[in-house]
C-alpha cells in the first residue's frame, strides 16, 4: 500500500491504494492490558495462573504459570520404596487414582518381569474403566459449568456417586484407593460386585443419552465450543498431545489399542474420533464429544470384563505380589491410557536398592497444557475459558 498521508489527524489515517481506493483507517488500538487469571479463578480448575495480555477483549498471549500444587512427587520417590510410591501416584491425578496406580505398577512389573494372574488383570481393567467414566463425568460436568450450564454438573455428579460407591466397596476409599499393587490388587472384589456393576451399567446407559440431550446437543453449548481453539493433527502430535485431546484432532490413537497392555487385546471396543459433521475437527466441541463417546466404550469394556472374568475359586489377589521389590538394574518407560491421555513412568533402577534411583512421571495434563500459549493466541477471553475447560486439566497431575 502506498501511503500518501493525505490527512493524518489524531488516530484517523487516510491512505490511498494503487488502484485509487481510499482507505480510512481508524486506529482504535488501546494500550494492552495485563489480565491475571487465577490461581484462584474458578474456571482454571484448580490453581493454574494465566497471565494474559489482552487487547480489548482479544487475548494476544496467555502464559501459564504452574507449580502452585507442586508436592515433590519425584523427590519423594527417591526416599520411598517401590510399593510405597503407589499411594503417591493416587494423589497426582486425584480424579483417576486407579489409572495412575495401574500405570505405575505396569512400569515396575515390566522391570521385575513378573506374570500377573488373569483375574487380577480383569479386575484392574474393570476398576480403571469405572474410574475413567467417573473422571469423564467430572470433566463434562465442570465444562458445562465453565460455559454457564449448571444442571449437567449435578446430573454428572449424581451418577459419579454410584461409581465412587462401587470403588469404595472394592477398595475402602473413595478417591485415593491404593488398590492396585505391584503384582496384584489389594483385595479381591467383593461377592456380588460384578452384579452391582452390571446394574450400574444398565442404569447408566440411558443417562449417557440424557447427557447428550442436556449438554452436547444444547445450542448454546455448541455455539460456545464449535470452531473454538482448533488444533490441527500434526501440531497436536508435535506437542505430544494424547488421549481425548489427540483424538479430538482426528488422530485415532489409543494406547489400549496401539500399544496394548494387560487384557485389552481380547476386548472389543471402538476408538471414537470426531467425523467433522457435528463439530469442526480439532475444536473444543470435538474434544468434549470424544469424552462423551468414550464413556459408552468404557461401558462396553466393563460388560465384557464381567462376562470374561475367571472365577474366584482359589484366587489370591496377592499371589504374585513380591515380598521385596528389588528390580534388576535397568531403565523402563511404561505408559497407560489415562482419562486425560498418556501417563508414563520413567523408572531407573540400580539393581541393589529397594528404592528407585529416578522416577519421573510423564503427566498427560502437563503436556496437553503446554500448547496453551499457541492455542489461546487471538481468542476472546470467554473462549479462553472454553479452551481451558476442554483441555480438562487436573492441577494435581500438572504440578505433581
Amino acid at each position, binding site marked *: 500500500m502506498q501511503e500518501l498521508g493525505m490527512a493524518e489527524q489524531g488516530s484517523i489515517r487516510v491512505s490511498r491504494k494503487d488502484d485509487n481506493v481510499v482507505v480510512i483507517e481508524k486506529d482504535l488500538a488501546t494500550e494492552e492490558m495485563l489480565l491475571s487469571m487465577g490461581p484462584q479463578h474458578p474456571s482454571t480448575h484448580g490453581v493454574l495462573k494465566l497471565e494474559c495480555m489482552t487487547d480489548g477483549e482479544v487475548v494476544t498471549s496467555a502464559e501459564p504459570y504452574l507449580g502452585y500444587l*507442586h508436592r515433590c512427587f519425584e523427590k519423594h520417590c527417591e526416599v520411598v520404596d517401590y510399593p510405597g510410591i503407589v499411594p503417591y501416584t493416587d494423589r497426582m491425578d486425584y480424579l483417576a487414582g486407579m489409572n495412575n496406580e495401574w500405570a505405575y505398577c505396569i512400569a515396575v512389573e515390566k522391570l521385575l518381569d513378573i506374570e500377573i494372574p488373569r483375574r487380577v488383570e480383569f479386575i484392574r481393567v474393570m476398576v480403571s474403566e469405572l474410574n475413567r467414566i467417573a473422571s469423564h463425568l467430572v470433566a463434562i460436568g465442570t465444562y458445562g459449568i465453565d460455559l454457564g450450564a449448571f444442571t449437567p454438573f449435578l446430573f454428572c455428579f449424581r451418577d459419579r456417586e454410584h461409581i465412587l460407591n462401587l470403588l469404595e466397596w472394592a477398595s475402602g476409599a473413595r478417591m485415593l484407593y491404593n488398590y492396585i499393587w505391584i503384582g496384584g490388587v489389594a483385595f479381591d472384589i467383593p461377592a456380588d460386585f460384578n452384579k452391582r456393576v452390571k446394574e450400574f451399567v444398565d442404569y447408566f446407559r440411558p443417562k449417557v443419552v440424557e447427557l447428550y440431550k442436556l449438554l452436547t446437543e444444547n445450542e448454546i453449548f455448541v455455539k460456545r465450543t464449535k470452531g473454538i481453539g482448533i488444533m490441527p493433527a500434526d501440531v497436536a502430535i*508435535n506437542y*505430544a498431545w494424547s488421549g481425548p485431546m489427540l483424538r479430538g484432532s482426528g488422530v485415532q490413537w489409543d494406547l489400549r489399542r496401539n500399544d496394548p497392555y494387560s487384557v485389552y487385546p481380547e476386548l472389543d471396543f471402538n476408538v471414537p474420533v470426531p467425523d467433522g459433521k457435528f463439530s469442526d475437527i480439532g475444536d473444543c466441541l470435538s474434544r468434549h464429544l470424544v469424552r462423551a463417546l468414550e464413556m459408552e466404550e468404557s461401558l462396553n469394556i466393563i460388560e465384557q470384563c464381567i462376562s470374561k472374568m475367571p472365577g474366584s475359586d482359589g484366587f489370591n489377589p496377592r499371589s504374585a505380589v513380591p515380598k521385596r521389590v528389588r528390580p534388576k538394574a535397568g531403565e523402563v518407560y511404561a505408559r497407560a491410557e489415562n482419562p486425560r491421555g498418556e501417563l508414563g513412568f520413567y523408572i531407573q533402577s540400580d539393581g541393589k536398592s529397594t528404592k528407585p534411583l529416578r522416577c519421573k512421571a510423564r503427566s498427560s495434563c502437563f503436556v496437553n497444557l503446554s500448547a496453551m500459549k499457541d492455542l489461546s493466541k487471538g481468542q476472546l477471553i470467554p473462549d479462553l475459558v472454553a479452551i481451558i475447560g476442554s483441555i480438562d486439566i487436573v492441577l494435581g497431575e500438572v504440578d505433581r
Partner: protein
Amino acid sequence: MAEIEEGKGLSQSLHQSAAAYAVIREQFADAISDFDANETMPFFEVIETEKWPDIALFMRDHPKLKFNYMACLSGVDYPAEEKLGIVCNLESLGAFGHRIAVKVKCSREGGSIPTAAYVWHTANWHEREAYDMFGMQFTGHPDHRRILCPEDWEGFPLRKDYKVQESYHGIKVPY
C-alpha cells in the same frame, strides 16, 4: 496365552528399534554410541552433544524414521560419572510405530545441552522442568525459566547432592 503374545510383540518392537537405529548410525556414525538392545527400554546415547539437534531433526524428518512424537523427556543425575543428562522417549506415531530412547549427557557443573524445543514443541516444557530440577542449561531454548519451583528457589532439588535451603522469604523450609 496373553503373556506369550505380549512377549512376541516386545521382541518385535525391539527388532524395529534396531532397524531404526541402523539408519541413524549410517548418517551419524561415531557421533552416537552403540545400540543398547534391552527389552524394557532400548536406547542409544549421543556422544557428541552438540550434534543432538541435527540428530533430532534427522530422526523426525527422515522418511524411514518419522519420530514425530516425543513421549517423554526426563532429566537424570549421574553423580558417579560427574554428569547430568536427559532421556528422550521417541515414537513414530501413526507412521511406523517404532520406539527408541535417546540419552544426551553434559558435565555436571555448568554443563549445557542444545535444545530440541524447535524440533518437538513438547520438549519446551519438559526441558524447562529438567532445568528446574537438575540445573543443566539448554542452549537456544526459547523460554529458559524454572517451571515448577519458584523463580528465586535456590538449588536444583533432584540432584543427588541437593541440600534444601534453610529459609525461603522468612519461611522455615525443612520441617
